[in-house]
């Protein structure tokens, strides 16, 4: 299950989608809006995505994870729109026969999404906020 959604992320749904009878473990990473950055208080974050490309990108990341680790299911969901402090922005869940693969593939998925998926965030802060300076993309 892979998606970019403007709806709140349902963690139970994510875990159900990730569980597999042949797996011995499932890892779940949940990213949420933090109330501060390095400099100031944050009240809200607006997320914007190039939905079609981001979903294609998530599928590529899943394929990469499957080539590296023996995993059963890979679930990645990212939210868009205006989120308040504490709201869930991203969830990645991976099931595998053993926990090592599940942990490593889940970390790989989260890191890859943060560095490569066409998603942008704009903070609303004490001083007004702005677009977060992110990771430049390249064609490799």
């Amino acid at each position, binding site marked *: 299950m892979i998606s970019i959604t403007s709806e709140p992320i349902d963690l139970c749904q994510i875990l159900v989608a990730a569980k597999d009878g042949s797996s011995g473990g499932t890892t779940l990473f949940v*990213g949420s809006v933090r109330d501060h950055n390095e400099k100031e208080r944050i009240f809200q974050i607006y*997320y*914007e*995505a*190039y939905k*079609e*490309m*981001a979903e*294609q990108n998530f599928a590529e990341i899943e394929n990469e994870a499957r080539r590296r680790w023996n995993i059963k299911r890979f679930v990645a969901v*990212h939210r868009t729109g205006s989120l308040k402090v504490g709201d869930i*922005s*991203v969830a990645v869940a991976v099931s595998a026969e053993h926990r090592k693969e599940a942990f490593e593939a889940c970390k790989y998925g*989260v890191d890859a*999404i*943060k*560095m*490569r*998926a*066409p*998603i*942008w*965030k*704009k903070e609303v802060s004490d001083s007004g906020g702005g*677009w*977060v*300076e*992110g*990771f*430049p*993309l*390249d*064609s490799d």
Partner: protein
Amino acid sequence: MAREEQTYPTIMVKLFGSSREIIGNDKITLKLSEKMTALDLRRMILEQYPQVARKIQFVIAINRKIADDATTVDPMDEVAILPPVSGG
């Protein structure tokens, strides 16, 4: 007899994040000349929208893939400007 005006195909470019906000629209339309590449398109964007060049670095995606400079652009392609990403 009226002289036929040469018409150029156009291409719509999607904008996201800071590029959308700087230009003030979620898309721009550019005239395409023959055998245009992603690099030509980048130069055209920087020339017509210098405010983008001053503020952000970006890559061009063609048909939902990041294009290298030599990638050719067709009027039917889906093109987008992608500023540095910050999901998560």
